[in-house]
């Protein structure tokens, strides 16, 4: 009984006070409850895909958003995870439950290796050099068709689960665990270092931070998460093909994440949950299904004009306000901070408001 009351108190005081946290809670509960309310196979398939791509987008955010390593070739890790898991489970007959971890490990290695190669590069050089990696990998795959299946990829993979429901739960739970893990990492002390590296790498190094080591660790973690989603994707579709390494996929994740809001963790996930079903829904219209990508691109462009920092930060600023004194977040309707009691909207005259910026 005590535990229940304690949990309720925690819930009330920590979660329900903030609209964003409430929204996340509702979203998690909705994800878990959905199949019981509306277990349509088609909807479950779309959401399974959405969950897999959400992991992918969140992993890109850790690398590009938090650490500032704007990777244009993130599909490399997705593809590495897909191919590694596929090859191991098909050639060696290992259960996919084990090989998805191997896929993540291989992708982590690829993350480490590519991170090592671009360690000295910055900004646009880094983006453009990383763009090359999946394309080089594609060339290698085509050079060894006996091993990789060439343009066809590796097919006939075993599934993790047979029913759409089970597949959905595997994807949804993995997504929740990985995304919350990445978010917690970004919010930890480790994450603060990453922010520092992004904002000013030289200053970070001057403060005694071994920035190359941090960058390599982040490349490996992001690679592992992306590879994990790639491996799940391969076993879900039962094919791991060259399309997992395409430039289009690398660009797609860039669009999703920036659209959602960089360096937030939840932004890219929200964007995938919004945009992926939306494009699929647009595509389901028989007469203008072919317009889906156009509509997608236009929506992204228009939304960007109004929310240049991305969707999630914009929404969050609308529904929440930051306390000017203790920097804690509050619901936008509050007058005073819920923790320190300072007034949230200080009464300043117009002239003061123009000069001061805190």
């Amino acid at each position, binding site marked *: 009984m005590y535990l229940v009351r304690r949990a309720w108190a925690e819930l009330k005081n920590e979660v329900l006070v903030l609209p964003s946290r409430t929204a996340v809670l509702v979203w998690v509960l909705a994800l878990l409850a959905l199949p019981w309310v509306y277990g349509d196979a088609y909807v479950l398939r779309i959401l399974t895909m959405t969950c897999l791509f959400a992991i992918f987008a969140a992993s890109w955010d850790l690398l590009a958003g938090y650490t500032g390593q704007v990777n244009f070739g993130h599909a490399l890790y997705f593809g590495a995870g897909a191919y590694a898991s596929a090859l191991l489970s098909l050639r060696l007959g290992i259960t996919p439950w084990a090989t998805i971890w191997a896929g993540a490990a291989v992708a982590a290695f690829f993350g480490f290796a590519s991170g090592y190669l671009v360690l000295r590069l910055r900004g646009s050089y880094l983006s453009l050099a990383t763009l090359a990696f999946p394309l080089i990998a594609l060339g290698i795959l085509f050079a060894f068709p006996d091993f990789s299946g*060439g343009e066809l990829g590796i097919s006939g993979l075993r599934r993790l689960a047979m029913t759409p429901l089970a597949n959905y739960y595997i994807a949804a739970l993995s997504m929740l665990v990985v995304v919350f893990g990445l978010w917690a990492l970004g919010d930890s002390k480790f994450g603060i270092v990453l922010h520092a590296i992004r904002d000013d790498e030289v200053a970070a190094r001057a403060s005694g931070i071994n920035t190359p080591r941090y960058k390599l660790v982040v490349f490996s973690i992001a690679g592992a998460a992306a590879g994990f989603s790639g491996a799940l994707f391969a076993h879900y*579709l039962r*094919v791991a093909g060259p399309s997992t390494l395409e430039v*289009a996929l690398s660009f797609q994740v860039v669009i999703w994440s920036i659209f959602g809001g960089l360096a937030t963790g939840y932004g890219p996930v929200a964007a995938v949950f919004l945009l992926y079903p939306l494009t699929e829904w647009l595509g389901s219209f*028989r007469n203008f*299904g*072919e317009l889906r990508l156009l509509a997608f691109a236009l929506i992204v462009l228009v939304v960007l004009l109004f929310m240049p920092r991305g969707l999630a930060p914009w929404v969050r600023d609308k529904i929440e306000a930051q306390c000017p004194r203790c920097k804690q977040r509050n619901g936008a309707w509050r007058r005073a901070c819920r923790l320190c009691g300072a007034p949230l909207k200080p009464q300043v005259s117009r002239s003061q408001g123009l000069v001061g910026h805190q």
Partner: protein
Amino acid sequence: MIRTAILATALLAASTSFAQSTIKIAILGPMAFVQGEHHWNGAQMARDEINKAGGINVDGKKMRVELVRADTNEIQSVPDATNAVERVITRDKADVLVGGFRSEAVLAMQEVAMDYKKLFLGVGAAHSKLGLNVEQSYDRYKYWFRVSPTKDVDLARTLFAVMNSIGEQIRKDLKTDTPKVAILAEKAVWTEGLIAAAQKNLPAMKMQVVGLWQPSAIATDVTAELSAIDRSGAQIVFTILSGPVGISVGRQMGERNMKAVAWGINVEGQKEEFWQAAAGKAQFVSTLDTYAEVEYTPKTMTFVRAYKARFGKAPTYTAATYDAIMILKDAIEKQGTLNADKIVAHIEKSEHVGTGAVATFDKRHDLVWAVGKTSGIAVQWQDGKKVPFWPPQVKGMHPFKMPAQ
């Protein structure tokens, strides 16, 4: 299991006059692209022909055909293609699926269709792995048939038969004993068998292989490859190309005034738009093809003419959705049921005279290869027209021409 249960109820309902009155056929293809366009056109022709005659006769009851147009977007995204399959099965309640083009996507689409035990008549993807699935685990994949094209391995037989006749012509015209052949194949798994066969068979056919060049399927520039081929003195360029590189090869060979003639598979060269795409430079490029205005099968001529009259262009091989639907119609009428298992059993045994081939299926549910039945025809581009020149026994063939030496 669920599928059969649903069908059983449907059939039960049919007998009690409360029934679905249409047969829903989903046409899956990349609708923004040429392949999908022909998928859809061919299917429309079949639908209109069937519905004009009152529909498909299912055990004494006429059922009309309803097409569901599904854009798979498979050229751009494999997941989109699987989503489209799931949608037409669970949402649109399609009874049969027809279409598919990109092999990697079709493999994934096949999985979804087989999960629901839906009949899936493939039209477009050539990869032998699709049929291998049927052989290896029959119970799961038996609902898959490949109506067009013939599987990649069988293509080789046609290619060498034609190569032989071209070789004879070159020996006569150029007075050489061993014509030189350069193999220009895109780098892909499906070309591997053909390359190996060429390297083995051509010397046996008294032809000399001067080299193998393998550009990417999407290469836009093959000048380096072509100048190397020029240097090698080849008289025949044996092309094995499915991607847009086929256009670049045709055009740039013309621009360089190459003495060699191109024969082989050039999927782009099968399309009506090829001549324009190569800016009128692809003189004498020849390729294996499915449709032409000849009496290949008794139905070919009528179909091609009707198609041209209706859509203003000649059909390419994905228009064999027409044949797929007609095969389905035959099977349903003969069996008097929509039961997928019975339809499968029927298609396996029957021979169907289609517009692009006389179709019988082997244990992989692939077309059985035979000259004049499923071998296809060979065509050559001459002054802006695609002219058929092989097999010689078919009426309406023209002579094969060589570039001026």
